[in-house]
């Protein structure tokens, strides 16, 4: 493994309310490519781990439970908006297997399935990594930086942002133009941990994602 993960800031008010809330990130010089056969084989192996009964009981395991609880504590019903690991499991059951898309999507999916911790990717060109973190939105904040200046956010929403830009709502997909694309030369992957998720799982999720990106 290369360099260690970095930890983003968490707004003090949020840190006080959620002591376990954290964001870890790493930047890697990689592009979005088609995945190798090895990654496809790994996804098929991971698909075989899922059985219906296991998916039903998933929410009683510590890490999915921690994310489900956090969702409720921030006003999101996890039965309506599934936590990432449950969403991946349900998609696997419905489609019959995990499908390989590209190196980034596959790396994030493998990290999620192996650790239960969600990981997202951003195009490093639009991120100020040193100030990346989690905060609550304030009046006038906008998501993304599109031609129209992004989408407006209501006050108090939890977002992943740096000093300049809001890249995503917490647990949401990156704003258009912020996810890695064909022009991306450097990728920032970040994972979000909550109360009840051991730090080592968050580190492991990032490590797995970066490992797949580098070897794919």
């Amino acid at each position, binding site marked *: 493994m290369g360099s260690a993960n970095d930890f983003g800031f968490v707004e003090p*008010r*949020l840190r*006080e*309310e959620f002591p376990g809330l954290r964001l870890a990130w790493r930047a890697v010089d990689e592009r979005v490519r088609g995945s190798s056969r090895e990654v496809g084989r790994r996804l098929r192996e991971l698909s075989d781990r899922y059985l219906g009964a296991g998916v*039903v*009981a998933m*929410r*009683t395991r510590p890490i999915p*439970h921690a994310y*489900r*609880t956090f*969702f*409720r*504590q*921030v*006003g*999101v*019903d996890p*039965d*309506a*908006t599934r936590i990432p690991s449950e969403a991946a499991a349900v998609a696997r059951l419905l489609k019959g297997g995990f499908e390989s898309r590209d190196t980034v999507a596959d790396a994030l999916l493998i990290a999620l399935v192996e650790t239960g911790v969600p990981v997202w990717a951003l195009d490093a060109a639009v991120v100020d990594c040193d100030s990346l973190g989690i905060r*609550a939105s304030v009046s006038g904040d906008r998501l993304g930086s599109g031609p129209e200046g992004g989408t407006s956010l*209501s006050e*108090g*929403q*939890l977002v992943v942002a740096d000093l300049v830009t809001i890249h995503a*709502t*917490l*647990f*949401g997909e990156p704003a258009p133009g912020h996810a890695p694309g064909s022009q991306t030369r450097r990728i920032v992957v970040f994972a979000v941990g909550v109360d*009840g998720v051991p730090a080592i799982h968050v580190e492991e999720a990032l490590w797995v994602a970066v490992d797949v990106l580098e070897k794919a």
Partner: protein
Amino acid sequence: MALLEHDSEVVLHGSAFAPARDELAARRSLRAQIDKLERELSDAFVTAYPMGGLDEPPTRSCAAPRLLGLGELERVRDDLAARVQAARASIAQRADHQAERRVALEKMLLDPGRYRFVRIANREIGEPGCGVWYVKPRLGLIGMLMGWWEVKLSSGCPLATAARS
């Protein structure tokens, strides 16, 4: 529900930060209660699954994540508590029904003649599979005339190929 615990020390000293700290403690307490209730609801979900699952919650929120105030956390807590209570009631009701059907099956096995043509599915007694216990006359019409009744268990789920053929 348990009453919220307040930080008595802060209240006694009457500090300027007392309301904020008091509210923070209250929110922590509510989050702990939500954690406990979510665990109980998950356990209930898994328990109820083989019985046919839990009913869908009446309202579903797709809100974006945000920092909730005391009142909102209380609403989340109360909603969860109601769902846990409803889930437990539903499980208990289904368990009672299963127990009732198991007793009926026992009686049927002891004295088939008193339960002619009665059918009890494995699913009704909380057993997996498609098997059905049923009372039928031995040797058909002769058994009916002679009062020879027996309990049979059907062979299970239809084969997946049956529909195609």
